């Protein structure tokens, strides 16, 4: 039997990965894409570094929310949610767990407009237009699946080393 060279093994593995033969990361694990526009922010301008941090932390917040709702693990919310937002999503996760439900978010990206940055830099408000695929499961049975564009009004506040989501409220429109 002919042996396959190690180099060919690597190439095959890469090709398999590219064509999806290898187990892919779960959708909830992927970092959601966030595009930030802060052109009309007031009353305080946003520093470039702050803008980058907002993008990073808001994206990580959505990633952790998706994982928490899919795996029914409220502790995943600890890193990027605070205040009533954390309380509410934790409560949803607890209810899901109790009722044998779970929600899967497949995130297709967020167009975020930062429009309020408090004068002392202790709160920022964002408008997020999110493209999401939402799947509701009862046990292993999917009871609802939808592709939606949702509008979220967001309040983020700075924590020790990151921005945290303090309020994430879906609204009918802006």
């Amino acid at each position, binding site marked *: 039997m002919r042996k396959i060279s190690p180099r060919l093994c690597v190439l095959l593995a890469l090709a398999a990965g590219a064509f999806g033969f290898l187990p892919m990361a779960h959708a909830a694990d992927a970092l959601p894409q966030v595009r930030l526009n802060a052109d009309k922010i007031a009353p305080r301008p946003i520093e470039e570094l702050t803008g980058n941090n907002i993008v990073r932390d808001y994206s990580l917040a959505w990633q952790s929310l998706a994982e928490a709702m899919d795996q029914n693990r409220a502790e995943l919310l600890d890193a990027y949610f605070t205040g009533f937002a954390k309380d509410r999503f934790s409560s949803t996760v607890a209810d899901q767990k109790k009722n044998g439900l779970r929600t899967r978010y497949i995130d297709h990206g967020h167009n975020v407009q930062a429009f309020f940055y408090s*004068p002392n830099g*202790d709160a920022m408000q964002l408008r997020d237009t999110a493209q999401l695929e939402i799947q509701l499961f009862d046990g292993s049975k999917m009871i609802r699946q939808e592709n939606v564009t949702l509008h979220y009004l967001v309040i983020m506040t700075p924590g020790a080393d990151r921005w945290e989501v303090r309020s994430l409220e*879906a609204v009918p429109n802006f």
Partner: protein
Amino acid sequence: MTRTFGFLGFMIAAVLLRGAQAADLQVPKQVVAGNAFSIPTSGSGEASFYLQGPGSASKRKVQLGNAIEVAEEETRDAGRYIATVCSSDGCNGADFFVTASGPAHLSFLVHPSRVPVATNDAITATAFVFDKFHNLVLQPVKVEFRVSLKDAPEVARAETTSNGVAWMSMNSSHKGGLAQVTASSGDILEKRVVQQVPSDACNLRIRAVRTGKFINVETDPVRDCSGNPVPDGTIVSITQVTDKGKTTVDTPIKRGVAKAQLPEAGNATISVASGVAIGNEVRVGGAQ
């Protein structure tokens, strides 16, 4: 014959299933937080009702043909809800939004906690308006900010919230002391205190007196430009320049004045500074 019975059987099954089918859900487009409502259903048979909201996820058995009662406790969190009814032949769902009820709480941020007097836009206040369920009230709400200080006229300013937030900035007054900053909306009132502290020293003046081998230097009472005494502990720098070089003594204000003892070294020029303020110069050894 067999074919006819088969078709008949299919038709009967279809009619029976139709009886158990959940019709499209009729839900209100918007509900004010904490309000109950009913979702009418048609058909017959048992079904599962799911209600997924921003702070809850419930599941219960319902009887098709009867209205599904959504309790006020189930609609307390503002945001998007998904109602789904699943019967034996599938699921139907609809979404609706819950909006905040009237203002009930203010989240009030005031900065800084200590501020120098007579400084432009030094005090900023931001108020977030929430309903009794801690939902951000997105309808415009009037918020009145007031800053009051003992023996000084009150300053008031009204702002209207935009997306649940109102803010203002104002100058600190010329008088030191505790300023009370309040935000109110209707009968909701939140208070914060800002300590207005004297600003930098102003019109610094020193006197120098030779006493044997030393020169005793003392400031007049140190005050800011508004006449408020600069607090004890504030550092005043006293510098002596002679032919032999320069000597600087940093000394804290005690009981309103700063004092230093410098070595006598012939003709000298002594000056004083504190922070960004520079005071007078005196000459000793020759003519003052």
